[in-house]
C-alpha cells in the first residue's frame, strides 16, 4: 500500500517534471519577443474599452503608451493615481494633469420648448434629426430621445423631461456622447468647471425666444458680473471661456441673475429638471 502511494507520487512527479522541462525548453526555443510592459500597463488600465483615448481599446492604448506614442494621462477614465502608477511602472512622465467631463449645453426640456410636430417615428436622435429636424421647436436644441444616454458606457447621462443631463460625478470625459449627438450640443469641459450657459442656438435672440423659454439671448449680464475673460461672446450668444482661469463659480450666477435662466451651476440645473413635473402625456399642437 505504502509503495503504491510512493510510486504514484514519484510517477506523477517525474512526469510533471518532465513536462515542465519540455515546456521550458520549447518556450525558450520558440520564444517570440514580446514586451511584458504592455501586459503590465493593460492591467493598470480600467479595461472599459470606451475608446475615449482615441485608440481601439485598452490593449491598443497600452501598446501606444509603452511605445511612447502617447502619455498615460491620455486615458480619460483613469484617475490621477492610476495614471501616475502607470507612469511609475514605466518610469516616464505622466503628462500634465487635465481632466474633462461632458456637459449638454441645452436647457430646453419639454416644459421649456414647444413640440411642433407629431413625431411617432424611431425614438433615436440621429433618426429624428434627419426628419425635418425633429419634433422640438428649436432646431439647435436637445432632441431628447436619449441617443447619448444609450451611447454612454458609464451610464452618466440621464434623460429628464426629454432633456439629456450629464451627472458629472459619473462622467469620465471619454467623449462617446459627443460623437453621438447629431446636434453637437455636448461639449467636453474641464472637470472642475461648474457654471455653464445651457444654450447652443446660434440664431438671433428674438427667434430663440419664439421657440424656447430658456435661451441665451446674449444680454451680457453674466459678462458684467463675472471676472474679465470668464465669458466670451460667440455670435448671438455668450459662452463660458473654459480655458480661462479661474472658472466662474456659483457667486457669478447669483450676481448675474440671468433673465432667461440659462446661466446655471450644474447643481441648479439638475435641481430644476428634477423639480419640474414629469410630463405624463405630451399635448401636441399641430
Amino acid at each position: 500500500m505504502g509503495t503504491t502511494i510512493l510510486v504514484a507520487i514519484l510517477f506523477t512527479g517525474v512526469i510533471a517534471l518532465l513536462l515542465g522541462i519540455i515546456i521550458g525548453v520549447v518556450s525558450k526555443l520558440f520564444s517570440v519577443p514580446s514586451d511584458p510592459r504592455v501586459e503590465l500597463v493593460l492591467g493598470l488600465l480600467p479595461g472599459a474599452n470606451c475608446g475615449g483615448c482615441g485608440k481601439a481599446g485598452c490593449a491598443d492604448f497600452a501598446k501606444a503608451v509603452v511605445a511612447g506614442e502617447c502619455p498615460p494621462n491620455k486615458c480619460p477614465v483613469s484617475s490621477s493615481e492610476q495614471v501616475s502608477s502607470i507612469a511609475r511602472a514605466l518610469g516616464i512622465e505622466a503628462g500634465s494633469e487635465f481632466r474633462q467631463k461632458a456637459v449638454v449645453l441645452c436647457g430646453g426640456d419639454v416644459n421649456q420648448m414647444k413640440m411642433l410636430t407629431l413625431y411617432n417615428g424611431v425614438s433615436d436622435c440621429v433618426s429624428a434629426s434627419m426628419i425635418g429636424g425633429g419634433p422640438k421647436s428649436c432646431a439647435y436644441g436637445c432632441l431628447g430621445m436619449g441617443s447619448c444616454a444609450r451611447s454612454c458606457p458609464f451610464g452618466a447621462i440621464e434623460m429628464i423631461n426629454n432633456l439629456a443631463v450629464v451627472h458629472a460625478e459619473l462622467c469620465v470625459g471619454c467623449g462617446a456622447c459627443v460623437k453621438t449627438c447629431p446636434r453637437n450640443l455636448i461639449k467636453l469641459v474641464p472637470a472642475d468647471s461648474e457654471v455653464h450657459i445651457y444654450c447652443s442656438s446660434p440664431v438671433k435672440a428674438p427667434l430663440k425666444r419664439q421657440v424656447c423659454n430658456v435661451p441665451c439671448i446674449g444680454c451680457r449680464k453674466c459678462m458684467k458680473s463675472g471676472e474679465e475673460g470668464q465669458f466670451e461672446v460667440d455670435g448671438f450668444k455668450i459662452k463660458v471661456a473654459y480655458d480661462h482661469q479661474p472658472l466662474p463659480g456659483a457667486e457669478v450666477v447669483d450676481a448675474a441673475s440671468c433673465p432667461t435662466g440659462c446661466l446655471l451651476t450644474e447643481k441648479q440645473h439638475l435641481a430644476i429638471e428634477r423639480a419640474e413635473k414629469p410630463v405624463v402625456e405630451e399635448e401636441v399642437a399641430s
Partner: protein
Amino acid sequence: MEGNTNYLEITIGAVLVYNFVLSRFMGVCPFLGVSKRLDTALGMGGAVIFVMAIASFATSLVYQYLTTEIEFLGHHLNLVFLKITLFILIIAALVQIVEVILQKLSPPLYKALGIYLPLITTNCAVMGAASINAQEGRGILAATLFGTFSGIGFALALLIFAGLRERLELSQIPRPFQGMAIALITAGILAMAFLGFSGIC
C-alpha cells in the same frame, strides 16, 4: 479490445447522437461564453477540434501504458487510478506547448486560435473525451477519431448556437428573458432537437 470497433458509429455518434454539449452537457461554459458572435465561435470551434484531437491521442498513448501492470522494486502495481491526474497534467502541458509553438511557427493561426487555447486547457469536454476513451478502453486510432469528431460536434453546436444568438440579439425579448435567460432556453430547445438523433447508433 478493438478489432470490431465500428468507426462509423464512433464518428457519427460523437458528432450528433452523443454530442458533447447537447447530449452529455459537457463544455457548457465555453458554449455559452464564446457563442455571441459567429466568427469567434468559428475560432473557438477550430481550437476545440484541434485540442481534443491531440489530447485524445496523447492521453490514449499514456493510458495504454497505465493499464499494463508495472513491476517496481519487486511490487506489482496498477496505476489506473492516476488517470485523471495524469490526463489533466498532460492536456494542460500539451496545450501550453502547442500554444508556444503555434505562436512562433504560425502567427496567423495563433491569432485566430490563440486566445481560445488557454480557455480550453482545463475544459471538461477535453477531459471528458479522454476519460470516455479510457472508460471504453479504445485504442489509439479509435480514441483520436473520437476526440476529433467530438470536437467537430462541439464546434457544430457552437456554430448553430452562435447563429441563433446573433438572431436573438436582434429580436425584441421581454425584459426578464433578456441576455443569458433566453440563451439558456434556446440551448435547451436545441438540445431537445438533438434528441431526435438518438437511436441512429
